[in-house]
């Protein structure tokens, strides 16, 4: 109730400050995938001092079934190979430093997620049997104070989300499903019957 009230005041003042946005590209990896290769990969990445995410370290949760997997933790964003719902996949979560309209921020986060996933999939240790299902994305707004999973949030933000999703998948057909459980984060499962390459998705974001 409090959270809704706080959000309503944000709506009135038109100051929804989207910073915590997560995008996950699902894969066909089994939930029991050996995550050791990601320790090696992220172990190298974490040393990149000039990365905009400002990497801090990696967190190893390989021991947790359906857990966060191996997480490269940064000051501004996290990137992981995540075993949680809805399926194993590459998860990018922005934490700060986004600006512009909500739509611009969503585009920015998707772009970074695609670029980093592209790079991850190209790493020599990346498990070759794992295929990215680029037509299956999970989008979440990771901030219940700012964007509780309510109709009000939906009214305000759905247009931006639909616009971006349409640009990405309208060519192949689009299925956009909002998270129905109000206890969970506001977000969408975005499905398309085909999986365009990450390069194509990136070009569609730029268009």
């Amino acid at each position, binding site marked *: 109730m409090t959270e809704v009230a706080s959000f309503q005041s944000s709506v009135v003042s038109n100051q929804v400050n989207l910073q915590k946005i997560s995008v996950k590209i699902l894969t066909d990896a089994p939930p029991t995938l050996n995550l050791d290769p990601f320790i090696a990969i992220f172990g190298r990445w974490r040393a990149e001092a000039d990365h905009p995410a400002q990497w801090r370290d990696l967190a190893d949760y390989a021991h947790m*079934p359906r*857990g966060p997997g191996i997480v490269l933790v940064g000051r501004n964003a996290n990137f992981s190979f995540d075993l949680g719902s809805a399926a194993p996949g590459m998860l990018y979560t922005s934490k700060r430093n986004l600006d512009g309209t909500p739509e611009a921020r969503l585009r920015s986060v998707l772009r970074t997620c695609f670029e980093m996933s592209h790079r991850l999939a190209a790493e020599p240790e990346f498990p070759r049997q794992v295929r990215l299902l680029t037509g299956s994305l999970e989008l979440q707004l990771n901030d219940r104070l700012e964007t509780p999973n309510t109709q009000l949030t939906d009214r305000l933000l759905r247009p931006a989300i639909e616009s971006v999703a349409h640009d990405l998948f309208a060519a192949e057909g689009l299925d956009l499903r909002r998270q129905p459980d109000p206890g969970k984060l506001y977000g969408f499962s975005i499905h398309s019957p085909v999986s365009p390459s990450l390069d194509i998705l990136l070009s569609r974001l730029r268009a």
Partner: protein
Amino acid sequence: MATAVIPETDRWSHLPPEVKQELDVFETELRRVQQGLVSEKVFLEFRLRHGVYGQRQPGTQMQRIKIPLGMLNMQQMECLANLAEEYADSVCHVTTRQDIQLHFVDINDTPNLMRRLAEVGITTREACGNVVRNVCACPNSGVCGDEVFDTTPYARAMAYFMLRHPDAQNFGRKFKIAFSGCEHHPCGLALMHDIGAIAQIRQQGAKLERGFKVYVGGGLGPLPYQAKLYSEFVPAAEMLPMAQAIARVFARLGEKKNRGRARSKFLVEKLGIDEFIRLVHEEREKLPFDARWTGYLAEAETFQEKPLRPPSSLDLVGRSPEFLRWMRINTRPQRQPGYSAVTVFLPLGDISSDQMRGLARLVRQFVRDTVRTTVEQNLLVRWIPTGDLPDFYDGLRELELAEVGAGALADITACPGTDSCKLGISSSRGLAALLHNKFHNGLSDLADRQDLKIKISGCFNSCGQHHVADIGFFGSVQRKGAHVAPVFQVLLGGQTEGNASAYGLAVAKVPSKNAPAVIKKLTDLYSSERAGEEKFSDFARRLGKARIKEELQELCALPGYEENPEYYKDNRQPWDFHHSVGTGECAGEVVDQSEFQLEDAGRLVFEATLAFDEGHHDEAAAKAYQAHIKAADALLYQKGLLLSDNYNTVEKFRELFYETGEFYANFAENFLRAAQEGSEGLGAEKTRRRLEEATLFIEMAQTVYSRMAGAKV
């Protein structure tokens, strides 16, 4: 630099006023330190006292969340899940003292994180720092067949009595309290605490009287001390005043400068237990009566948790082998017929946000709010009707929370180590994760053994409680030529039974990579040479250090880097080991209570100024007057007055500082006049003057404090 703000008032107005105020103060202090208006030293201890602990990784924080007695309700579990998801890395970590920790938190998120916890009745206050930490209790309290009585209400009363207590704010080091319902089981670990209380009943005439056998001065750390017997029986009604008196003695006489000798165990040793007891009794006599000491007792006598569903039994015929194995290892019958307590085994103490939320939903179907965290870093769900165990098991399986191993060899305790702790030397979690993996693959024949415990610390400080394990490890390093390798000291013979009744001794130092082989070697040795039902600690003592060392000899050798560079990487870390230890925050900073009060006075003047600028003159005047009071209290503390003595600040200040000429007369008179004047309707001009007077009063108080503190050195 962030702009200083007084947080929005509307969003959190439903919080209890004192809690809201406390968290608003925290946010204000955070902004003030970011603007350079507060010293880093004072803020460090201040944030620690709100559970915010700097991680090894620069700019990231661990948020420790106090869970008194480990008691969680479903709403709290859901809140923790949400906060981990939004502010951390979607993992709630259960600690060895029944807290929950979130890692990789941004300090700017902590005020709202704490407010959201406050919405569900949780505080992070005094989760870290030199204060009374989380009060622990046996998670089986109330459902254990062997307990003397349910210690829950007594431990809870202690936790909330000591929380924020003015007599517990000026320690040289942290202070830990634990309750146990019995003498023998390993759940309460009372003997390794500063105060350890074990339930007792005695006959008093025709009545049975509840009380506790009390131990004091125990603690682990680099130098573990067994607690010493304080009293065979302290009546329940005397427990809280006893703790208050102990706190006063510790605050007054405990070491403040040498951080390595500042725990109460050193004070008890230095004074001797008899003198310590005498001083506590003397202090007890001086305490002004507090209704809270006994206010809870009548209810405590009749306290009992209530089940959600009626009791039931279970027919085991036709059940799957997986279920039967899980039931054998992860559940135990309660004292109450027809009910079982289920341990949800959490590898390395970690549970994801999705799992935590799912577990809350599942548990809600079977029990009331009766989940507890355990010192073995698991969750205990009590009051499951035994006949419902198959359904509950199915629900846990869906959440991937039905792993077998609770209380068994595979149930390894580990501190965070180099994953996040500045003091960590080697990767305790890396080793625990490796062993967890091995127990599924390679050492699976050992996983279910319930006669052995493994505990791992990343350094000698013992947060992983390695001293009380059958097989304990603590992290260290070994140099060979130009390279440094992670190694572990192996300790054998510790015991959690009997409330942590024996501490292990180091027998060998082994390369980190060889630790799994050490487990295999020792368990094989135990299996083959154990005499009857001999416990591992007795077995280790019988075999002797020389023999064990000989057995482990081949595993102690560290190959050269050129020969095998893998030995120079820590477990589950593919990069070369780098030995780097920072300054830990476990010890916090010793900040004299007067310094805190003077800092608080400064904050009040700051807030008064903001209120004045917004035209709230009465509020500004009142805050400025409160600033005077805080600064005066800071000086009175130096005269030996304690807030819990309930003295009159104005009168005592007049007597001890104004009339003696110890404080500049003009400034003192301003304060005394303000006390008479009140704070309402002063108008802008007089209010502005009061703000200026408050600023000058605090400046003078700082000077007088420096002089007094300097004279004491």
